[in-house]
């Protein structure tokens, strides 16, 4: 530590001007970073974490202004460097990786050339040499057949491949500091795991200093040594990774950890503890402690005295007046945690009469002739979206439907709802036959089968008031009079814990979590028996996800509704679902109760998915499967096992030639694989997650 730090940020404050209003985006941020360290920055939207990255890169827009502070990089103040100096630094000593690789790559230049440009402009090497080095970099980021990929254009590469190219560009000049702004947020779980593994490996190899920005605590556990938690433009806690996870010293961090479903693992159906309230608007911040309005531990002085960043333990800083109360509380909750044993005895009984029965439903999309070959992404062929999917859902049951994007999850949901007409198959709902087309379904069916969509901004009409949104389905399907429908809508609002005054508001006047609660209320408007939830929490901030998940459970236990819960987040599924269905390329590769699927034996794809989930636990073991699988090429000849191209456990030519059998590995637990049941992978290392706290 006697060395001068690589990066030294002192008292940095940044604000944005909007007309006459000045919005403080960052207030009084100080931290240092030694060479080779990795700092994780955690915060929800509006916490100022991206602003910090832009301030370091000096990319603040014309309305952004550094009010005070210094950013010393190698002892030189970046805020006072000339534009010319900054240009020389950026891309050479400082690099940045953005959330959206599509936005960072130039769509009209081949990938290899974009990397080569870094060498020609910063290292002044010749074009041939630069191209050779570019291919070398692609190889470094584990891209299969790099010289072929170097000739591809960005749109021809998958999202994960694009992000690895961006990382290759950032690493090309071996910069001293790389800023990663949510580099995996837009990616699939497995792709995310692959990118994280890659970053971990490269960090060790190049000894690069990293600042990793994320909204999700779990993502950074494998990469970072230290973590800084941002809230409403302030750094509220800063410590080593382990200290932060095991003994958070700020109520906000504590809250973030509490609302993660799989914390500690095994707590079946423990209600999540959401953080009450909503993120404050930066233009009207609380005067003293910014977290006070949502804080469980707040006391009278919290609204008066502005807390300073205070050292709680060695190297563990918190911006809270009452962090000592948190320590006491921690000891108490540990005592109670041990007492409550997981009650997994609610395993679903085999109901004699399933609510929903899907038999051999298939859907094929015709590849449009215009640009079918030219514009198709490498490693994707989506003609068979669903092939003969069969599943049953009992009344009041929750089935979790998991799989990567492109696995057909959403198509299956749309086919069940009738929004997309399936090509083949038969469905029954209750005692009735369920026609494939929406237009042929009666009002009774419509009433009992509803959906909650992923993004409430898209699923609520921005020009309708909440009243219209709720009353309309009640009147249309419930055959109620105007006044009764009004009353029913009011009851619904109360049921989703929203105030009646919201009736007159427009969706834009609600926060993301409130909007999603309105969308849930709408789905429940008509004594619904089955609600299909398509990633209902993935668009929400971490602190409000828990509220929505709790609400879904509460409504289920009140009305006995069944859920088909689509999610890529396996922790959420483990938390909510009775049974899990794993979908890969339109095939159900595994199905079983939640316990069966999470403890194995598993299909290799399920194993890959489970090992890819970032756990909010620094000590969880990692199986390095994702990167290997990701780098394998996908075979698309349509023969044999659908997963053969990416399988890390293939047993031989039989995988290429014969479609695998559906093997029964336990009561109600089936796996689509050639591997004998006894040899199927068991998630032993996952089953015994060390209990945190």
């Amino acid at each position, binding site marked *: 530590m006697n060395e001068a730090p690589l990066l030294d940020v002192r008292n940095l404050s940044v604000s944005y001007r909007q007309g006459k209003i000045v919005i403080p985006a960052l207030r009084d941020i100080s931290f240092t970073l030694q060479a080779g360290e990795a700092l994780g920055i955690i915060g929800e939207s*509006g916490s100022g974490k991206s602003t910090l990255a832009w301030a370091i890169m000096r990319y603040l*827009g014309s309305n952004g202004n550094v009010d005070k502070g210094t950013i010393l990089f190698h002892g030189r103040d970046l805020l006072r460097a000339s534009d010319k100096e900054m240009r020389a630094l950026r891309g050479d000593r400082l690099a940045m990786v953005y*959330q959206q690789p599509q936005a960072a790559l130039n769509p009209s230049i081949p990938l290899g050339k974009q990397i080569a440009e870094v060498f020609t402009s910063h290292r002044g090497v010749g074009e041939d040499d630069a191209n050779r080095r570019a291919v070398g970099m692609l190889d470094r980021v584990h891209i299969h057949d790099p010289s072929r990929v170097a000739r591809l254009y960005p749109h021809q590469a998958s999202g994960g491949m694009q992000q690895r190219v961006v990382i290759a560009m950032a690493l090309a000049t071996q910069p001293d500091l790389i800023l990663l*702004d949510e580099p995996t*947020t837009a990616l699939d779980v497995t792709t995310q795991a692959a990118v994280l593994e890659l970053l971990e490996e490269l960090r060790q190899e190049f000894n690069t200093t990293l600042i990793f920005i994320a909204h999700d605590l779990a993502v950074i556990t494998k990469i970072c040594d230290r973590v800084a938690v941002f809230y409403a433009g302030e750094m509220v806690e800063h410590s080593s990774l382990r200290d932060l996870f095991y003994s958070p010293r700020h109520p906000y961090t504590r809250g973030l950890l509490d609302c993660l479903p799989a914390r500690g693992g095994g707590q079946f159906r423990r209600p999540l503890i959401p953080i009450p309230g909503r993120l404050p608007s930066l233009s009207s911040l609380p005067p003293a402690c910014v977290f006070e309005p949502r804080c469980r531990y707040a006391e009278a002085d919290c609204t008066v005295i502005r807390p300073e960043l205070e050292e709680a333990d060695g190297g563990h800083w918190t911006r809270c007046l009452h962090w000592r109360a948190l320590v006491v509380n921690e000891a108490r909750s540990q005592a109670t945690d041990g007492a409550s044993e997981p009650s997994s005895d609610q395993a679903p009984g085999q109901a004699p009469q399933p609510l929903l029965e899907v038999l051999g439903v298939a859907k094929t999309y015709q590849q449009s002739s215009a640009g079918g070959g030219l514009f198709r992404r490498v490693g994707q062929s989506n003609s068979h979206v669903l092939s003969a999917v069969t599943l049953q859902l009992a009344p009041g049951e929750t089935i979790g439907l998991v799989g990567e994007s492109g696995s057909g999850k959403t198509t299956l949901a749309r086919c069940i709802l009738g929004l997309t007409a399936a090509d083949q198959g038969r469905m029954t709902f209750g005692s009735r036959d369920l026609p494939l087309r929406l237009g042929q379904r009666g009002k009774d069916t419509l009433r009992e089968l509803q959906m909650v969509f992923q993004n409430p901004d898209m699923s609520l*009409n921005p020009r309708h008031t909440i009243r219209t949104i709720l009353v309309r389905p009640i009147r249309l399907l419930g055959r109620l009079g105007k006044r009764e429908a009004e009353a029913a809508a009011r009851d619904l609002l109360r049921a989703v814990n929203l105030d009646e005054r919201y009736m007159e508001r427009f969706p834009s006047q609600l926060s993301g979590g409130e909007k999603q609660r309105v969308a849930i209320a709408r789905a429940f408007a*008509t004594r619904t028996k089955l609600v299909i939830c398509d990633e209902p929490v993935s668009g929400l901030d971490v602190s409000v996800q828990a509220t929505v998940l709790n609400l879904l459970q509460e409504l289920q236990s009140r009305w006995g509704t069944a859920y088909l819960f689509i999610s890529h987040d396996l922790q959420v599924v483990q938390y909510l679902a009775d049974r899990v269905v794993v979908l890969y390329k339109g095939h159900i590769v595994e199905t079983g109760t939640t316990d069966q699927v999470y403890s194995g034996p598993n299909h290799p794809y399920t194993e890959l998915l489970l090992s890819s989930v970032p756990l909010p636990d620094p000590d969880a073991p990692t199986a390095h499967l994702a990167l290997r699988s990701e780098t394998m090429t996908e075979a698309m000849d349509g023969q044999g096992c659908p997963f053969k191209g990416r399988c890390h456990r293939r047993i031989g030519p039989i995988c290429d030639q014969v479609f695998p059998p559906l093997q029964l590995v336990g009561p109600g637990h089936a796996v689509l694989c050639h591997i004998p049941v006894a040899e199927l992978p068991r998630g032993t290392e996952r089953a015994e997650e060390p209990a945190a706290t």
Partner: protein
Amino acid sequence: MKHVNADRPPVRVSAGQRARHGRARFWLDQVRAQPLATLGAFLVIAWVLIAIFAPLIAPYDPLKGSFRLQDLQLAPSLAHPFGTDDHGRDILSRVIFGSRSVLLLAGISTLASLMCGAIVALVSGYYGGAVDEILMRIADAAMALPAVLLALLILAMFGPGDLGLFTSTVIVFTPLVARVVRSAVLPLADREFIAAAKLRGERGPAIMLRELLPNLLGVLAVEGSIRLGYAIFLIASLGFLGVGVQPPTPDWGVMVSEAQNYASVSPWMVIFPALAISTLVIGVNLVSDGVKQLMLSLEQRGGDAPSPEQPIPASAPEVAAS
């Protein structure tokens, strides 16, 4: 003139601001932020007032000429500020009365083309497929002809006069409006609130009118203000060609056309009606730019917490979509 100036930052309005200062303050802020649009609005309102109060303002009867040689083609003077024409009629009065036919006809036909265009766009964008294909190919065919040529063809069927002018303007503009509005319908039709409406059993017309149309009002306002400018222009052009408003009714296009033979001897006969056309068209176009900006700023006002991370380029906004 018809394009939004790309460098001009959209005028930002926050809901909190509006709530605090009320509607009057909001418009005052808009006026301050958009001086050109305010000038345009001033021009348009001035012309509308002139048209309404024409009989009170006009110093002479616009139709009453003179057969005395010394009254013809008089240069502007105190008695005749805009001079007189070759029939000895007062040009100021004719310009004042000329605003009536232009504004009324252009206004009504613009409204009618907006309605027809919106209907075509909704049907085409919502149903898609073959319906969309057929409607849009017809629109393409109509748009392939130059506007004035198409209008002339239609006028040839209806004969010159107000009905012909109205019909031709509507037929010329409907496909243009439909094209623009359809492109706004397409992304909306994919939104999940449409799926939600289908799931509760709404029928097509209800979805189009209740769910889609309210979201199109902004586009329609912008499109309407643009089309109004073009309609004024088209009607004046047709008047100039002699197939529009028929003499002796005062019409700016007709006045310019009649005066062209005398342009070198008595330029005021051309200048003043031409000036009238251009001030009105410029005014309408400035207003239409302003409407566009206003819609942009209203759209960006999502919730009352303006995200400070939004205005920075080269990065995606923070969406927690892991």
